[in-house]
């Protein structure tokens, strides 16, 4: 969820904050903190939507996600996530690559590097975008960094041809394409024997993959092959570029053995500076766009028995503040919150996850963590553990270091989330 969805409007029920709505923010919230925009003394902002407990697990949820609510007993919330980045691009890089700077491989690349691909005819790491914009962190979010680029995520288009120019042009038959690729292959191999650059090997592999993808990729991405009732359950409409269609494609890819699939939905940066960034306007639209599809994806994976060996992780790059923004010292025209790296909420579901529980807790204003803080590197270690890795051992020698996705600071697997 690119842009950081507000945990205080979705999963963090804070009646005390609602009671103090409109009062001046206490000075202790501001001292020593760095914000993207907050200036002067902003007003506290209570939740904009009513909360209630749902499911047998009795976890709190707002009225914005009525479909997801029916899946709440499958979800494991971590309400004590923490990051050290307060701007989108570096925070997204930190979440995706373990480092706020460019040049590190994304988690998907690490997983592909560690597990290898399962389906030879599709990329092992596929990325789909929706919401009208790319995430601020750019393509590095699924880049392979210092790993060989054969492990990078492949961004596919979510309508029309999934990968441009994959089909053979008119007059070019498949055998002709094959003989052409063989010739290119021969040249590439000569180049490799001469210079020994691993990127040449990547190039050879990419040509071969594309040739095989000509058969399979279009089929895997084609949601017209899904029965009508399945498409309806996702809220998917043919020909659209939407999160709903991407969720459905994601399930089809997972079925075909694609190891790592990422869906980015843009537009959660609810500062209150424009209608699309207002908690009561754009934010509500975003919730509608993702609620039904993600709930349908969970239900679909469950009925197909795929939930047992699929891990689903939902979240943004940081949280949002308990107060309004006061950008430039002025009260904002519309309702919104600034970035809060100090606390945010994610949820996980699926294989290896203990369903229907909440880990961690923030203070009664939802501003700072009071119990079980989870660092980004802890989340990475946990995800890797569930996928069968020891995060200390998944490494790659680069610039004289055994590089790891969790970096050099000690990371821990969060034991409470494990089933």
């Amino acid at each position, binding site marked *: 969820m690119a842009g950081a969805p507000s945990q205080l409007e979705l999963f963090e029920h804070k009646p005390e904050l609602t009671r103090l709505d409109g009062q001046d923010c206490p000075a202790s919230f501001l001292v020593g903190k760095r914000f993207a925009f907050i200036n002067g003394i902003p007003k506290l902002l209570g939740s904009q939507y009513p909360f209630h407990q749902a499911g047998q697990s009795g976890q709190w949820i707002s009225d914005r996600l009525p479909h997801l609510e029916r899946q709440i007993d499958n979800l494991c919330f971590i309400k004590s996530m923490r990051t050290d980045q307060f701007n989108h691009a570096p925070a997204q890089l930190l979440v995706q690559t373990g480092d706020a700077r460019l040049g590190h491989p994304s988690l998907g690349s690490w997983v592909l590097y560690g597990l290898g691909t399962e389906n030879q005819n599709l990329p092992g790491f596929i990325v789909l975008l929706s919401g009208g914009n790319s995430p601020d962190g750019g393509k590095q979010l699924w880049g392979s960094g210092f790993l060989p680029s054969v492990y990078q995520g492949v961004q596919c288009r979510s309508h029309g041809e999934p990968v441009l120019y994959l089909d053979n042009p008119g007059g070019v038959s498949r055998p002709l394409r094959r003989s052409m690729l063989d010739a290119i292959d021969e040249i590439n191999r000569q180049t490799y024997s001469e210079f020994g650059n691993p990127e040449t090997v990547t190039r050879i592999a990419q040509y071969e993959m594309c040739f095989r993808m000509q058969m399979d990729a279009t089929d895997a991405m084609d949601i017209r092959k899904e029965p009508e009732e399945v498409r309806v359950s996702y809220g998917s409409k043919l020909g659209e570029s939407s999160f709903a269609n991407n969720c459905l494609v994601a399930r089809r890819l997972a079925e075909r053995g694609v190891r790592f699939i990422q869906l980015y939905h843009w537009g959660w940066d609810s500062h209150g500076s424009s209608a699309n960034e207002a908690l009561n306007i754009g934010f509500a639209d975003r919730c509608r766009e993702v609620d039904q599809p993600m709930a349908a994806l969970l239900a679909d994976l469950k*009925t*197909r*028995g795929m939930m047992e060996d699929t891990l689903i992780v939902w979240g943004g790059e940081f949280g949002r503040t308990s107060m309004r923004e006061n950008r430039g010292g002025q009260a904002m025209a519309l309702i919104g919150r600034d970035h809060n790296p100090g606390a945010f909420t994610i949820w996980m579901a699926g294989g290896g996850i203990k369903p229907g529980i909440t880990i961690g807790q923030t203070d009664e204003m939802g501003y700072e963590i009071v119990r079980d803080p989870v660092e980004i590197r802890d989340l990475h270690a946990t995800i890797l553990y569930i996928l*069968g890795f020891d995060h200390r051992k998944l490494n790659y020698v680069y610039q004289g270091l055994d590089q790891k996705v969790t970096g050099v600071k000690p990371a821990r*697997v969060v034991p*409470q989330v494990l089933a």
Partner: protein
Amino acid sequence: MSFAVQRLSARVGFGLLTLVPILILLLLVLLAPPDGNERTEWLQFLGHFHPIAVHLPIAILILVPLVELAGRSRFFPQLLSSVDFLLGVATCGAIGAIALGWCLARSGGYSGSLVTQHMWGGLLVAVAAWLCWLLRGRSSESHLNRGYLTALIVTVTLVSFTGYRGGQLSQGENHLTEHMPERLRTLLGMQAFASVSSTSSNAGPATFYGARIQPIFSQHCIGCHGQAKHKANLRLDTYDRVMHGSKHGPVIKAGNPTGSEVFRRITLPPTDDDVMPAEHKPPLSPNEIKRIELWISAGASGTQSAESVQDVPADSGTSTAVAEITFEESDPAAVAQQRARLASAVLQLQQRFPSALDYQSRASADLVLDASLLGSNFGDNQLAALTPIRDQIVSADFSGTAITDASSPAIAAMKRLRTLRLAHTKITDAAVKTLVSLTQLESLNFFDTAITADALAPIGQLPKLRHLYLHDTKISPDTPMPEELRKKITF
């Protein structure tokens, strides 16, 4: 002349004025040495200024020899006339620091050889500084008398010794060497630090005491009952010290928790004056108290193994806490050995069915089969080819393949299967009947198949089944079936 007399009498006055408090302090130290007890707030309050106050006399006494040397050079002859003043200030400062030091030592729960040595060192520094002042006189001449020189050397030596002991008291006995780089350590012929500290405990990490009890003491108690500070003469930093007890006698009575002073103190209500940890430090958690109780009940042994004590609550403070995840080291040689018998068969099949067959993990010889990617290219004949490795397969996914009921005996022969997926296949009820032999099966998937309610009876016999997927089959939530089975089904 009268001027000289006045100066002389001023010197005598100052000499006596400083000698008297030194003698008083000497008496105090002799009559009321530090005894490990804590006393009134005033003494403690004043005492805590000692570490601040000591630095003035130390700095000046180190400065004096420098001034004496520099004053004899061509550049700073004027310095020599200030030595008299410096020594006077240093003597006064030392007296003040000793007085505060006595307050701290007497009231803050100190006892033992460290503090005694530090205390006598401090007193001797004051005496030596006073002697320096006396022996040197006011002279600013370049001649040095031998008595003064000796006294000055003794003073500087005493300052170093006393300062080092003081550092040990406040920062631990190894405070200078504990972070010494290993290379330098070897160069100086010193023992590795780890082995130095481990000799202080005889109850190793494999014992219940070492693994579960000492960490509690180390976390909560040794700030006041440890190496540097041992209030009431009690130290809880090693097993021997714990069993030695305090100045009032043993604090642990083996087999009798309620009769043990340690246990009594940690279980008192927080408002009680005797409660430990004192001074509003965080109390021990119920689990930690329970562990100490179990340890004392079981004989308060230092050698009992960690596993031998039963019903031990978890390590951390809250009851919701879960053990941290640790990673087991795998043994590649042993794994290779386990795999050896079938290695060639596995390799052959891996080449025949690319990406469909793999080991469950690096540390395992068990196999995971995913034939779903082969789709209609995988049928009964292909499945039959898996016979040589059937005992190693723990998970099999035949979703969307062309297998039929004819394969059911081959699947039923995969006795170790825990997961079986038959979604989108032509499998029918007839095949299900043969699958009852899969006693290890935990998850069974019939999504989008033609199986009917007739299959439920044999499925119900699977002893370990936990998940059954029946979406898009002839079985619906309305189909009558035992409740126990229904709970396992996802429709």
